[in-house]
């Protein structure tokens, strides 16, 4: 009789703890970096993102982009993760130059970061010249202990 109750109590504790852990683990891990560390890390992620685009590196993009990634391109096209990765690996796409300047990490929380940068592009995609400068907002979240990109909005800088 006692052993039945002990077993039941043990099961209650395990299930209750598991459900609690599901909701809490990522948030606790997010508190481990300082504000400055996060800003530096996010700036590096910005470079990784654009290097992936420059090098047609779909693997790096897949590593970086979260499942529900979304991006709005100049002209208003809205693409999801799969579409963006497909564009990055598109062999008809050739960027001689793509890099961020003026990286301004404007918002930092333990598990969220948002930056504004000026991205310079020199290159073609499908014969279309994408050369120019763009203002870009990029957003990152800390997911399972590592930062991932969840989206970006891009607008061309026009005179």
């Amino acid at each position, binding site marked *: 009789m006692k052993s039945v109750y002990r*077993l*039941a109590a043990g099961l209650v504790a395990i*299930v209750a703890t598991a459900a609690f852990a599901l*909701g809490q683990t990522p948030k606790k891990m997010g508190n481990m970096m300082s504000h400055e560390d996060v800003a530096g890390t996010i700036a590096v992620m910005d470079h990784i993102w654009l290097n992936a685009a420059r090098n047609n590196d779909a693997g790096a993009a897949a590593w970086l982009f979260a499942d*529900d990634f979304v991006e709005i391109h100049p002209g208003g096209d809205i693409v999801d993760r799969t579409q963006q990765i497909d564009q990055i690996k598109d062999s008809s796409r050739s960027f001689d130059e793509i890099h961020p300047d003026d990286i301004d990490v404007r918002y930092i*929380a333990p598990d969220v970061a*948002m930056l504004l940068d000026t991205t310079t592009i020199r290159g073609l995609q499908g014969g279309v010249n994408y050369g120019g400068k763009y203002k870009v*907002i990029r957003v990152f979240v800390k997911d399972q202990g590592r930062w991932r990109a969840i989206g970006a*909005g891009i*607008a061309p800088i026009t005179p």
Partner: protein
Amino acid sequence: MKRFQLAGLVAILMCAPHAFAQTKAASNAATVEELKKFDHDWLDAEKRLDIDYCEKYFADAYVLVFPNGQTYTKKEWLGILKGPDHPTITFLVPEDIKVHLHGNVALITDHTTLKGHDSKGGSMDGVFNVFRVVTKQDGVWKATGVVMNAIAAKK
């Protein structure tokens, strides 16, 4: 008898994580609806030049990027809205709102139609696909970033 009671208890407990997931999904659905409403409220406030609303619900980190790449901070944008050269907005409505929820941040994409004019009477009419960043700060969702992209020529 005791075996049946124990089996019943185990079955109930095994359902707990599933119930937790269902509760979380329902909570997310409610948050998505809350954020769609926030998108409308936010644009309504800008349309009627409600500076108090914008002061309260725009994050300090807020940045607005216009379709020409011009950027404004919260201070700069609200300075324009409450200044003598503020725009006159007669129609500002988001449609096809999609919410991408990631815990304490959400990305919202929408299709916004704007009708109005600047202080000199120049038309601001246009249709835009808009990227919005909303962050939860001290339990309150706040507008944190916007990138507008024109999808039709301004006339």
